[in-house]
């Protein structure tokens, strides 16, 4: 409706054996710093900027976005968190098929939205430690629009520093995708195999 003026704007499971090995490492070797979190977001943003201003075709751009997501985002954890309780009851085969389908779905969906940034740029301002993660604050400058804030939540709990959430002007990607995935699953009567098949075409 007409209320949209400000809205104006979003892998494979880590081996369990690997996690126990990481726990044994001294904390200092693992601890993520604000600088590293900021560096990750800087790299991500540089790549987004170069993809959106590359002049590539839509299909080529969406392919580049998928590569970007798998390199810099913790797609497995995001996928699991978005599906919620249904992930717990899924079989191992369903889990990996779902995670795979989710990776394509999320890349296409957010890749399409980032395409609106063509001609614009994102600038990273600062990083700060919050609770168990780092928050990196950036500002998006789009042609003819007031600048808006994009926050990235970064963690190294997967064993690598990766971002797991993006918050655009307060709108939280994980929360929004949980709502969406819950509704998609409900529409299919809780049939996770049907959801996996359909995610590939969404």
């Amino acid at each position, binding site marked *: *409706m*007409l*209320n*949209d*003026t*400000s*809205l*104006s*704007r979003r892998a494979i499971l880590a081996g369990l054996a690997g996690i126990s090995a990481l726990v044994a490492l001294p904390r200092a070797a693992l601890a993520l710093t604000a600088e590293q979190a900021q560096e990750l977001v800087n790299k991500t943003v540089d790549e987004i900027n170069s993809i959106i201003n590359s002049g590539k075709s839509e299909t080529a751009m969406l392919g580049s976005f998928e590569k970007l997501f798998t390199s810099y985002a*913790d797609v497995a*954890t*995001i996928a*699991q*968190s978005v599906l*919620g*309780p249904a*992930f*717990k009851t899924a079989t191992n085969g369903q889990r990996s098929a779902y995670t795979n389908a989710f990776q394509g779905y999320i890349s296409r969906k957010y890749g*399409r*939205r980032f395409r*609106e940034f063509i001609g614009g740029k994102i600038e990273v301002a600062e990083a700060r430690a*919050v*609770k*168990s*993660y780092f*928050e990196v604050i950036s500002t998006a400058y789009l042609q*003819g629009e*007031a600048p808006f804030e994009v*926050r990235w*939540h970064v*963690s190294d*709990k*997967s064993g690598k520093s990766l971002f*797991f*959430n993006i*918050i655009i*002007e*307060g*709108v*939280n990607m*994980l*929360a*929004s995708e949980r*709502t*969406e995935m*819950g*509704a*998609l699953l*409900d*529409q299919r009567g809780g049939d996770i195999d049907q959801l996996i098949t359909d995610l590939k075409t969404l």
Partner: protein
Amino acid sequence: MQGLKISLPSVNLLLAAVLLVGLGLLAGCSGAPGPNGIDDPYEATNRRIHEFNRGLDRALVGPAAKGYGSIVPKPVTRVVGNLAGTLDLPGDIANDLLQLRVADAAQNFLRLGVNLTMGVGGLFDASTAIGLPGKPTDFGETLHVWGAGEGAYVELPFAGPSTVRDTVGTVVDIALNPVRLVLPPREAMAATGIKLFSRVGDRDRFSETVESILYDSADSYAQARLLYLQNRRFTLARGKEAANDDDFIDPYEDPYAE
């Protein structure tokens, strides 16, 4: 003249009624919000209104916006947007003062002066060009600053997502808009027309976002509700950290959490 005599008291009556009902609802509905911080006791009704709004957008507002965006040249739609923004400034200043945000009031006052002079009567947003960006606000925010709770989520016919507090705010902003009260009836109508066209222009400018929410999501009602509440809370928090910490979801600690 007669029209004016009749309409003013009735507007005031309507305003008083809405305020009373709204404040009553605010007091009554300050109960704990449900999961995800969403308080939506009128969900069934809201969903019916949402379907009405979606139908209206599909049949009328969306196509009208596309037509407006493709027929009217871009510089003209921009001028309409600028005029609408300048017409909002007196109301913004009034709300800034009610919120005791003197710096914002001064900035918006300066914007009004610059846009009316350098911006040729508000045709151009000269202030943003010289580094004086807009500081939009509304009476819903004033109520928030005064300590009123958000109240229940509501979706309004024609206007879309809101809360009880923001609905009261919208009604007060329309009824007590300084521009509408000062201008003669015909000019006030023109001002309303400009704002309406500006909203249609926004619907066109943000068409990809609007359409992805309304037509591409599995549950457009739930998606619009979440987006509105999150964005509104973010705006009202004005960068205070408390609001962000509420947003934090830790997918590592509790991966199966609802």
